[in-house]
């Protein structure tokens, strides 16, 4: 009914309650209803009309600020909005926060306009409004495009270019960018039970241990979006472990150590399957050299390593024991004595691989 109804302050004051609602992609009316149900009006004696007016005001403001939020560094060089640093930080951080379920769906998709237009199904599946899905998609895409080619630490780049203060959020984005960069296949049916958190955990460890920023890597100048090429080349040397001689040796060591801690049935199972299993683990390792194989890392891990154990009803504890001993007994192989630098490679690979496996080892 009102024709002009605006409220402007010298300081930008954000109603974060409403901001969250806005970020969830709800429409103006939905927001108003939600706020009303939370009893905003009771405390002030205002009417619904005022709530709508306030909400409209805020929505306009958010829409204006959104341009800045997309490139948060611009906050520093604009006069239009006088926002104090704390509010600004909250604004940005909340804008870049995302729903794990949505990101889980977006992961593995190409960040293309075509895919953006097809977010309806994501929205349907996750029950998160389309607008919010689009925002999250756009954020991921923007962050990815910005830092993709940048040298230096992924996390630090994200922090500086998007003014994200929280380590946690920056790490998450780093992981997403890493995954997007390697186009990890996550959409397969086989992986559908895995959550974003699983991938996040694995990727973080991959970044920390396998990328250029890893402690073992000498060449820190390069981007940590990529895996350490040197390491990948060294992984090829592990192929030697798939030779029968070493496989048997490895199996013997392992079975000896496991003898006491596993049931008979599991031991025989393991004994029968060890060859395939070990081959699979090592082929994943040297497969990391080929970007196509890298893409399928998660699929391979689940398909070749986790699923057999799952079928055999191994518990997580059993898994822990197995993986640790698998790694340790490997070190006792004669091969490592002849090639000492393979020890580091083996450990660098197995540590992270074990963590990934354990994280992904669930239904």
């Amino acid at each position, binding site marked *: *009914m*009102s*024709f*002009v*109804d*605006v*409220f*402007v*302050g*010298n*300081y930008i*004051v954000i*109603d*974060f309650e409403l901001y969250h609602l806005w970020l969830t992609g709800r429409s103006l009316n939905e927001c108003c209803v939600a706020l009303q149900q939370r009893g905003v009006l009771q*405390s*002030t*004696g*205002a*009417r619904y*009309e*005022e*709530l709508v*007016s*306030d909400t*409209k*005001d805020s929505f*306009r*403001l958010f*829409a*204006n600020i959104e341009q800045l939020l997309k490139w*948060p*560094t*611009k*906050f*520093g*060089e*604009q*006069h*239009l*909005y*006088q*926002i*104090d*640093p*704390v509010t*600004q930080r909250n604004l940005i951080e909340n804008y870049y926060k995302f729903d794990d379920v949505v990101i889980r769906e977006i992961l593995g998709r190409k960040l293309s306009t075509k895919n953006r237009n097809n977010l309806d199904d994501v929205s349907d599946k996750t029950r998160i409004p389309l607008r919010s899905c689009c925002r999250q998609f756009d954020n991921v895409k923007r962050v990815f495009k910005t830092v993709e080619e940048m040298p230096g630490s992924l996390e630090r780049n994200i922090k500086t270019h998007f*003014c994200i203060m929280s380590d946690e959020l920056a790490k998450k984005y780093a992981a997403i960018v890493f995954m997007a960069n390697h186009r990890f296949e996550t959409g397969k049916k086989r992986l559908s039970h895995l959550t974003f958190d699983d991938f996040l955990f694995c990727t973080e460890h991959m970044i920390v241990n396998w990328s250029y920023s890893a402690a073992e890597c000498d060449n820190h100048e390069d981007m940590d979006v990529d895996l350490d090429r040197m390491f990948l080349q060294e992984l090829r040397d592990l192929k030697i472990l798939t030779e029968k001689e070493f496989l048997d040796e490895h199996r013997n060591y392992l079975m000896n150590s496991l003898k006491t801690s596993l049931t008979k049935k599991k031991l025989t199972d393991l004994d029968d399957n060890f060859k395939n299993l070990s081959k699979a683990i090592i082929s994943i390792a040297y497969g990391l050299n080929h970007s196509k194989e890298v893409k399928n890392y998660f699929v391979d891990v689940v398909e070749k390593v986790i699923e057999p154990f799952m079928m055999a009803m191994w518990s997580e504890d059993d898994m822990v024991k197995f993986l640790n001993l698998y790694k340790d007994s490997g070190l006792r192989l004669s091969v490592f004595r002849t090639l000492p630098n393979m020890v580091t490679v083996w450990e660098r690979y197995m540590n992270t691989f074990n963590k990934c496996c354990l994280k992904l080892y669930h239904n």
Partner: protein
Amino acid sequence: MPGKVKVKVVAARGLPVMDRSTDLTDAFVEIKFGSEVQKTEVYKRSLNPQWNSEWFKFEVEDEVLQDEPLELRVLDHDTYSAHDAIGKVYIDLNPLLVKESPSVITGWFPIYDTMHGIRGDLNVLVKIDLFSDFNKFRQSSCGIQFFCTAEVPSGYRLQYVHGFVEELVVNDDPEYQWIDKIRTPRSSNEARQRLFSKMSGQLARKIGLKVLEMGGSAVIGYKQCFDLEGESGIVIRGIGTAVTLAKLRDPQVSPLGASPLKDYQRPIVPALYISMPLVITSNTQSHAHRRSLHLPHSHPLTPVPSNTLTSNSHSTKMSTSVAHTVENNSTPSSPRQRSLTISHTHPLTAPPMSKSSPSDHSSERSHFAFDFTYSSPVPEENLAPSSPPVSHARSTTSPMKVTGPPSGPPNNRRSSDSDMSTPPKGSSLAGSSGSGSGSGTKNFPKPCSQQINIELMEYPLFTMTSFPPGFIIHIGGVVAARSIKLLDKIHNPEEPETRDAWWNEVRTEIRSHTRAMGCHAVIGYCELTSICDELILLSATGTAAKVNLNLDQYLQPKANSQQLVSAGDRNLATEKERDQGKKLFVDVNLANQMTLRSGGSSEDGSPRFACSLCHIPYKPSSAPFPINLSQCACCRYVHVVYLKFNKDFWFLMIPIFPLEHVVFGMCFSPCFYYIFPLFLLHFFLFLYRVIRPKINSKAEANAKEISDILPFLEYDLHNQLMNKLKMRSMNGLFGLKMQFVVGESMLIGIASATGAYLVPLPPPPVPRLLGQITSEEENVALLDLQKKLAEQIQRNKDLYQLTGIDFSGQPSPHSVYTDDSDDEGSDLELSAGNKDTFVLEVDDTKDDNIQAMLHDTPHPAGMDLCNTETCPGIQSRLFSHNLQMFTQVYRRKIDLEQHMKTDFKEFFDGVYRRLFFKLRRMIPCCLCNLVFSVDAPEEDEIEVVVTGTCVAIDDSQPQSKAVTDTPVSSSASNKQLLKSANVSVVGASGENVDDMMFQMEEVTEGSASSALHKVPKIKAEVLKKKQSQVFGRTLQGIQITPLAYVPGAKIEKYIGSYNFFFIRETTSVREVGGVCGFMQKFIMEVLAIVRAHVSSLGGNALVAYNLTQCVLLTNEHKNQSQCLINVCGDAVHAVKEGEITAVIPEHVRKHSDSPIYVTT
């Protein structure tokens, strides 16, 4: 002084993409000053060009310096076609012309385009080299400072008040010139902006010349108004008060400087439109006092004090009045109190005392230092120490001298033509009251030739809204003059005679009204217009008062000695008397009584109580109109306070005056509550409005119609205001602002004011309903209504915690008796009238008004409202920081048919509720300086622009904690003090001992507990509850506030005033989010530009911010919208309390520093 302007264009950032093919811009800057244009090089292909240009130099005359803004135009270079405009930056160079001002303007200025808004920023450096004038015969007003602040700027001392200055400049509106038909909207808007800017520069220059002529050095309370008269042109009017200001010595140097001076040290007596600092003063004082009880050892008993007080020198007129204030507050004349006061009175002579007093005392009191830094360097001669009782006794004898009639020479003030025009009754009375005022002024010695005689002023109008203590002697009431005119083409813009004549008419009118009220000056004067087609409504309002222009303390001792010599002079004797009276109020009351009995002029002998401000300035018997008088509830014996809101008065007033102009008297008694902070409990905001449909007819008939309706509208407004006031059980209004708007089909009047309970005035009577009862049913309804009314009143009383004091206002039978006898003597039978009955007429449409009264928009707990600068009843110390300055624009269609009144009420209720809702998270807070500006842009549309500021109330500070923690002890101490005070009263006056004492004690107890303790307690609770809110922290950045001070900070330096007229237009309303989106963006842009200018001058806040004009034109069919906004204010550098005052030297300031937070 001609000068050389040097400009350096450093860089730009965030430019828009002007070349679609490259997504880049080839920018260059055109620098225009006066008629000269220079250019930078083209910086190719960049959105962040770095020119780092040479210095561009412009040698110009000072007139150009003052009139023209520096214009920087950013363009996109185009080889083949015309260059595309990106936007402009206008820089007003006036701040550089004042000495002790910044020597350089530098910073990032938003590049503003009238069609696209802000498009990037430009980094510029501007310097001026002034040549000293070689032609000494030509006067230049360079260096005259203009303050929008309507009070003495902090850090300055008022030396002289020279009086009213006004000027108006007229020009054709470019929007209405033929050329506008062929040029683009952009160039039309820019032409307008440039013209407005130039005109306001001219206006200021002309006013500056006038000020120079008067011998002043600055203009305070400078107001500039734009009348967009449409076809007939634009008129820019400027009014202000010419004054001579002296910079205060560095506070650090003064002995008081040990403690940081705070903002509430501003020594101001609030006048009508103000409520401010005194409230503060009062509170702090009572507070200090209480504390002093806890720390008795900290007050050295010095012999000096009482002497100074008793000294009959008036060298420290103000100081004594202040001292008196203290006394009254804590009635016992305890040496402690005095010593404190005195230490401030003579900071030079008694530094050790002030030092020895606890630091918080000195800081709380230090506001007095302001006045007294220059006070008599020589201690008074009469230093014989005497104990307070003795001095009382001594002065008891003196009052007799007062009894003589005021011996002012026969009133020979120029009788203006307007006096003739006032009705016979008024003019006849004016004579007698005039004589009173005449003598009042004559009383003051003329120590130097610079003395200004208010009687000689053509227009004794003061645009200031608050004054240093001692400036106001009496307050008469509200005066207003309105006039409806038909706009005509201004033929000769150089000599805008018609407009001048109109305003002169109005001013003369208001002057004559003032005289009719027995006053000789108008304070808080302001002028307003409303234009609708060819009709223009001019209105001027202010508060009639008697003032003392000769404030300069420095001059007083000299005068004193003179006076002593000519002791035989009766005037001087009176003067002396009065001074004593100030200290020893009881005796003076007696004296006063006598004066009254003997039929002498009432005001001359009246003590300079703080409450005397609300005593009527004229003889009761010769009141200009029948009014109800009653005794002043504080001094009790003096019966010069009149019941302010009297209905009869209105009835009588309105027919008397010519219909075009209405004068009315309402007593605003703003000042004295600083003595009685206890009683001043709460305040609230009224907003009352009446719409009357206006019949469309021809212009002339229309004008007549309006001038016929106007008085009734005004009456109605006042009536409603008073009803409202009584509903709230309050008896005083502050900051009354009235606005009348002529719309196409309606005439809107709105009034807003902050209510307060003032102790000296009688409590408001309980409304009684009266109606024509024709049936039992109606009777029942009426009774029901009456019941509701009573309930509502009780609720309000509870809300404002007035219950404790209510009965106290009623004199006890005994004292009534004595008073009555007095009354008979001084023919005050009028007071016997319907003092206690307040009748509400209820007719068949009863529901409308009464119901409206009953259903008032409640404001949320913890949020206080006032339209004054500080909130009465809240110590401004608690105003910890500025939370938000806001502008709300609300426009909607209104139902003109049946439910007009209710719809109009609903309109404003909606505005309120929006405000409350918006600011709900800021609680506990106080919305200060709420200004409503109404307009009727379309036939059935109303627009209101609300501006104000939200100030956080923080009573978690240690001092107030003390209050809340120890309510019992402090109230007890209060009581004790009052008791002793009463004793001394008794001793001196020797009559009505027991009754008085009993009475007063009760008063204090009730009020003390209710006011001082309940309020903070409640506040504290609120605070505790809400502490988790986000807004606990202090905001940084550039503050903008409509207040004259920065809450929680001290203004260190005034850098210059800012005034600009923004025009914004869009041809894509829908795309920018509708009209709302357009407005929101535009207001934000305006604020952003203002902030950038403040920071470029090295300031960090803009005070006295005022959005003087906001015109929104829109055509939804064409998808077009245009908006004009005029803003003004004073850029200052403020330092937070407790912060180290380190002024960054100019050259250190980074050229590129951005005022906004840099994200890290």
